[in-house]
């Protein structure tokens, strides 16, 4: 097969697959069918330009930057010299989706290998041309030159002129040792920043196609409502309206402009039958306490009931964490365009290949006839894995015979996206007078219906307990459950880390000391010690009145600890500063990890302090920014981030761990400040 002039590096796709049958992605998104490749991961064009191809998407986490740094390191380039093509199913290797903080640890390593393979190929070409052995050559700045005499060299373009070279990525291709890094591990300029500050970056909301129609979809007035009748006669007569599509489960106005579509949508007259028995927000904790199904034991050791019976001290408490919408800045949008029997959809989804499969299945097409392009994505935090506008736009475009844009309003984004599931968690613990935990019984119900994996994540206790039982069950889901930064991990950690604080307070032991007394994992201990030291933690039992709190977390293989200082004024909690530490193994891009930690802490302030979905009778009550408060710049604490990972450990996730400890750390600080123990989020509603 000809791949064109220049150097092409091919290798396996579907890294880290097949997934376990019980895995989250398989449960959440159906039967994923991986394409294992081989696919093109890297190209050096005849003019010497380097392009990396990867199936991940960029939704703020900076993966384009990280992958450019990885390739630049192995090829001796600056990151800005590497073009990275992402998320276009027509151009990049198959990928399961951008979630679970997998991008650096799987794709990043594969891109490094691809770039190293390219370097080896260029060294071989130069060795023949310069009549020197490859180990006496250096690849740097777009040249391969003699180490002894760097004026003896050839550019990538000179090496590749008229050649078609194809290499496979091999596991044995040597990667640079961490001690030789000159790009990875250093502070670099984000490669895609200029497009973002000049308005040139194109998001799904920004895609405009020739002849495109603007759609406005009719949504039910409440979850589960069924349409009884529709009168679209007025809407059809409105200026600019091309038609009203009614496919039963998809009704939409199509017009020549967005405003014309909005105006006609207002005139659709519809009657609905609402579902009986909708659960409202205040009923949910009681419902979860009554009815749980599909309990899964995620951790079991010894005999927890016997250990509780003989424990010197016992504590039982119940914690409630409500639903939270992700509320990304960019409401989801898609543009679909048919060309004969082939379909292209621009969609800001975290799962372009998954959405391609869904489109192909719906229309009974071969996947090769469907191309999904994920442009820049204006935030998602997990919620853009499920992505309904793609299929809506494709159906409407088929009906109209013209390209169609479906762009959610803020209200649609809030109400018709997905939510971090709510949970009710009861913990019974036993412990001795020195603060050693001797019994641990953890019973959680998450509103996950058929996706119990969401709630299981992070449920196991990291504290050494001989007799422990952790059971996670599913409960009814009045709102649609979906992914959200760290999934159930932050939810489970809230209950556990507050409970640990309660044990410390019951015994009058410093909460940092109590954690260290029960924590065997050296990496875990180190992040806690580093965060406490950076914070200037002074040993004291809570409540000290100072308003300091601590919590730790483990997610996607990475360890995090956070110490916070707060103040309370009336019903407002002001978080003054956060000292954090993370161990995510070998760090590709330290600025990227710091930004992810800061971002995870700041977004985490919302669900900790004031964010929650309010719903009643099948309606979201706070589905607009007028009714939904989010953290603002003037409430942002001073944040320090310590990177304490060892380069000897493989890279693990950095996007999610930072959100895991923040809510319990603040709840614990609230107790330290006010002596009031709050076991329900968001905290400010309990003041």
């Amino acid at each position, binding site marked *: 097969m000809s791949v064109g002039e220049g150097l092409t590096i091919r290798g396996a796709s579907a890294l880290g697959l097949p997934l376990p049958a019980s895995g989250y992605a398989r449960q959440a998104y159906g039967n994923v069918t991986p394409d294992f490749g081989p696919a093109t991961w890297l190209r050096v064009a005849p003019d010497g330009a380097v392009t990396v191809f990867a199936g991940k998407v960029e939704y703020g986490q900076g993966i384009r930057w990280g992958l450019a740094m990885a390739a630049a390191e192995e090829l001796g380039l600056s990151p800005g010299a590497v073009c990275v093509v992402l998320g276009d199913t027509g151009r990049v290797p198959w990928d399961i989706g951008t979630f679970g903080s997998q991008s650096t640890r799987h794709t990043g390593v594969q891109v490094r290998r691809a770039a190293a393979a390219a370097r080896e190929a260029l060294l071989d070409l130069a060795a023949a041309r310069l009549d020197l052995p490859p180990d006496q050559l250096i690849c740097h700045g777009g040249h391969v030159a003699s180490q002894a005499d760097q004026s003896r060299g050839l550019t990538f373009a000179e090496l590749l002129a008229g050649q078609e070279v194809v290499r496979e990525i091999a596991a044995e291709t040597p990667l640079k040792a961490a001690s030789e890094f000159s790009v990875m591990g250093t502070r670099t300029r984000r490669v895609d920043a200029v497009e973002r500050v000049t308005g040139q970056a194109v998001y799904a909301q920004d895609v405009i196609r020739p002849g495109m129609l603007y759609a406005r979809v009719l949504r039910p007035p409440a979850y589960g409502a069924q349409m009884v009748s529709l009168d679209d006669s007025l809407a059809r007569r409105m200026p600019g309206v091309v038609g009203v599509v009614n496919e039963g489960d998809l009704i939409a106005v199509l017009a020549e402009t967005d405003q014309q579509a909005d105006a006609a949508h207002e005139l659709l007259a519809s009657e609905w039958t609402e579902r009986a028995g909708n659960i409202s927000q205040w009923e949910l904790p009681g419902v979860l306490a009554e009815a749980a199904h599909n309990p899964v034991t995620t951790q079991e050791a010894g005999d927890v009931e016997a250990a509780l019976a003989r424990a010197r001290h016992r504590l039982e408490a119940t914690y409630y964490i409500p639903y939270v919408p992700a509320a990304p800045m960019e409401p989801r949008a898609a543009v679909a365009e048919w060309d004969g029997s082939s379909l292209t959809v621009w969609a800001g989804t975290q799962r372009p290949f998954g959405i391609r499969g869904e489109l192909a299945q719906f229309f009974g097409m071969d996947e090769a006839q469907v191309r999904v392009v994920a442009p820049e994505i204006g*935030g998602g935090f997990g919620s853009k894995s499920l992505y309904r506008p793609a299929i809506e736009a494709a159906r409407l475009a088929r009906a109209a015979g013209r390209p169609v844009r479906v762009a959610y309003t803020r209200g649609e984004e809030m109400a018709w996206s997905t939510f971090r599931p709510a949970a009710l968690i009861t913990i019974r613990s036993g412990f001795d007078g020195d603060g050693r935990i001797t019994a641990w019984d953890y019973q959680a119900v998450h509103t996950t219906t058929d996706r119990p994996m969401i709630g299981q994540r992070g449920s196991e206790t990291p504290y050494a307990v001989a007799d422990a039982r952790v059971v996670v069950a599913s409960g009814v889901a009045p709102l649609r459950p979906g992914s959200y930064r760290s999934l159930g991990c932050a939810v489970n950690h809230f209950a556990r880390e507050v409970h640990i604080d309660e044990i410390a307070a019951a015994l009058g032991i410093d909460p940092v000391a109590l954690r260290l007394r029960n924590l065997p994992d050296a990496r875990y201990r180190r992040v806690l010690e580093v965060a406490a030291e950076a914070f200037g933690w002074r040993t004291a039992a809570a409540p000290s009145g100072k308003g300091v709190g601590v919590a730790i977390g483990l997610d996607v293989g990475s360890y995090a600890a956070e110490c916070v200082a707060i103040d309370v004024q009336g019903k407002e909690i002001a978080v003054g500063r956060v000292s954090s530490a993370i161990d995510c193994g070998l760090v590709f891009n330290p600025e990227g990890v710091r930004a992810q930690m800061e971002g995870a802490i700041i977004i985490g302030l919302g669900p900790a302090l004031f964010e929650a979905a309010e719903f009643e009778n099948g309606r979201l009550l706070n589905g607009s920014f007028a009714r939904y408060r989010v953290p603002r710049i003037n409430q942002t604490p001073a944040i320090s981030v310590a990177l304490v990972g060892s380069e000897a450990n493989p890279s693990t996730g950095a996007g999610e761990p930072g959100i895991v400890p923040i809510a319990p750390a603040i709840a614990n600080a609230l107790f330290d400040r006010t002596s009031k123990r709050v076991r329900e989020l968001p905290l400010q509603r309990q003041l």
Partner: protein
Amino acid sequence: MVNLHVNGELRDAADPRRNLLSYLRFDLALTGTKYGCGEGLCGACTVLVDGQPLRSCLATVASVAGGRVTTIEGLATGESLHPVQEAFVEETALQCGYCIPGFIMTAVALLARVPQPDTGQVREALAENMCRCGAYPRIERAVLRAAGCER
């Protein structure tokens, strides 16, 4: 017909009731100005009209008739970025970047009014702009850097 200047170019808008944000994004293809909420609450659609920040999602073209509208696309001069844009790049003051045009336009207006703001003034001026990725500390540093008030 409404006349207005957009990034220095004289434009005729046919429909005076045309929403300014939609006009900029879909009629002029200036998609750097973003839709976030449509209620003037998130700041993603902020443009400058005669130097003053305006939530374009709540405005009609008629309401800015004769005005000089500056969008994010109109800030740089050729290849050279506006100092506020440059500072956002230097401080990596962005993640997904969707809110960033609104922050930059608001910051440009602040610095025109208060050339040497302190941290409190920066925070106050930007408190009505939302960022969900949590780039706030870096945005604050970038605005101070652009003003030559680096901490």
